């Protein structure tokens, strides 16, 4: 099975592109040795991520089955997920008053 993107953990809501993907392509997202098809709506460069399901504003972004940040705006399935719509929850002086995910 040839895959175009990789999901690391079944609980993840983002996948990493393993090649440059163009908007409009239907790609195979691999999870282990299984894969499923998904339509991609924006250009995604190699090594960059897209949402594998809709992520609402404020929802946690999950990779490795763990929290890698929080969505700052809605990220639709198949759209680009990066610094423009995800924020870190660490090393943030403005958040250090207990505003951490459980």
């Amino acid at each position, binding site marked *: *099975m*040839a*895959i175009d993107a*990789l999901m*690391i953990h079944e609980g993840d809501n983002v996948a*990493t*592109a*393993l090649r440059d993907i163009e908007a409009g392509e239907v790609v*195979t997202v*691999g999870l*282990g*040795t299984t*894969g499923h098809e998904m339509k991609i709506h924006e250009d995604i*460069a*190699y*090594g*960059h*991520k897209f949402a594998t399901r809709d992520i609402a504003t404020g929802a946690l*972004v999950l*990779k*490795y089955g*763990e*929290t*890698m*940040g929080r969505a700052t705006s809605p990220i639709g399935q198949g759209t680009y*997920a*990066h*610094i423009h719509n*995800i*924020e*870190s*929850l*660490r*090393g943030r002086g403005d958040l250090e008053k207990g505003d*951490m995910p459980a």
Partner: protein
Amino acid sequence: MTFSGYRRPNGSAGTRNYVGILSTVVCANEVADEISRRVGGTSVFLHQQGCCQTPVDIRRVNDALTGLGQNPNLASVLLVSLGCESTAVDEVSREIAASGKRVEQIVIQDTGGAARSVAEGVLIAQDMVQEASMMERVECPLSDIVLGLKCGSSDTTSGLAPNPALGVASDRLIAAGGTSILGEVTEFIGAEHILATHARTETIGEEIIALVRRMEERAKSVGADIRGGQPTGGNIRGGLTTIEEKSLGAIAKGGTAPIEAVYEYGERPGVTGLVVMDSPGREPEILTGLAAAGCTVIAFTTGRGAPQGFPFVPVIKITGNSVTWDRLRDHMDLSVSAIMEGKEGVPDAGRRIFDEICAVASGKLTKAEISGYTKAMDIYTIGPVI
């Protein structure tokens, strides 16, 4: 399951059977290196420390040399000393000998210079190698393996393929009763709160967070903010979004086993299972720290291709980058790039890494051992050279 190893007098098991030539101070490196060059079956450890340092750092050097000497991969140890250094050579010698192995010393200033010291050291080392050659591998349980976990020269593939796969291999070793040591505290930054949730107890979790804070404070004390500017511009261009994501990719090599304890740099674990050790990420210092802590095999994942191994501990190089695998064949031991092609799942790749760890523990040579790319090592110190 078992591997074929060398049973040591203190009950530990080595994967190699070298005579260790350990320099006790930077000034003795030349002699130590020359003795090793002339005697097959020896393995030399060189470093830049041992004198004109703060007491805290000298204590570290003593402890690190003791730990290295006690490493089960060494049958016996020849300490090469200058004579006037700060390293407590007699104490180091006594403590290594307490583990039941033969320890000898050459003191350059007493012996009368480099030429005489090399000549005398060669004769001692020859005798030690002959003695060591009589030892045979015996069947040892996998629970005797202490595995070091390390990643270096990482790229996009590192966090996706080799690190998660190594995590699977580490979990398997721990399920068999073995021990894995996760260092590189700087790489926990941003994910320390997540790593803390992997701790066996809340106290251990707090120790992990304190360890990261201490590493940050060290950087801050010289005016640097290592959390600021992370991930780097290059990381962001490469697709990494947050510091959590970057750190999660690094700590994935620790697998899912609970963290049983937190140790100082080079400290020998008193428990089995997954443990965390204070150490920086740079190769010469962390590889030494892992070896001093008693690691008998080190699994090292790399993206772009880090070349070095360690003098007497086999270092298995694992890459998920097919280009690196093709280009750096003289450094790479295992490719898991099939994960990147959807041809292999992480669990299967992890099983292959685990099998390789067992094979190497039983004597299969790694590329770093074959090429001897192991000389530029060092001991992690904190204070200034004075």
